[in-house]
């Protein structure tokens, strides 16, 4: 197993740990925080996967995922703040 695949494995384990807070979070804001953490970890692991599989298209997917998850986070935040 190369060092890149090891990094992706650890990042996936961290996503599962963050999902504990996503399920158990007492308020909706805690769940949004956990979702934001999972989005960041997905982008990081997608960049590393692009090297592991030698596919540059994965990194373009990471850029688009970062932008779209940002829009999603902003809309959930507007909804929670009662401004929508």
């Amino acid at each position, binding site marked *: 197993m190369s060092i890149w695949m090891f*990094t992706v494995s650890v990042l996936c384990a961290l996503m599962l740990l963050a999902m504990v807070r996503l399920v158990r979070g007492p308020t909706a804001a805690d769940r949004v*925080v956990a979702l934001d953490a999972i989005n960041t970890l997905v982008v990081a692991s997608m960049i590393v996967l692009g090297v592991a599989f030698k596919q540059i298209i994965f990194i373009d997917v990471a850029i688009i995922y970062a932008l779209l998850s940002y829009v999603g*986070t902003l809309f959930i935040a507007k*909804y929670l703040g009662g401004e929508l």
Partner: protein
Amino acid sequence: MILNVLIWVALGIGLFFNTLGVIGILRFPDVYTRLHADTKATTFGSIFTSIAVVLYAAGQYWHTLDGQYATLALHTVIAVVVLAITNATGAHAIARAAYRRGHRPVQAVVDHLEGKP
């Protein structure tokens, strides 16, 4: 080879700070401290894992002079810039929404936003 050592060090720092961020959102008491731990630590860790990718691409480009490694490095830098901007702005939006929703910091001594609309 020194470039491989640098790649390992960057990946180790990145994984360490990502782990600290996730432990922070599992252990801290309220939404503001969780946001504080999560956003800064995972952004820093993701920047360092991407620095490892850029170092790898630079080393491969040095050896082979293949243009696709330059593309890899450039796209990774674009992804890191996008990630840094969106994480900071999104964290600000979440904190503002949580305050407007009525969550207050648990053990805060001073709250400068108290009573403001």
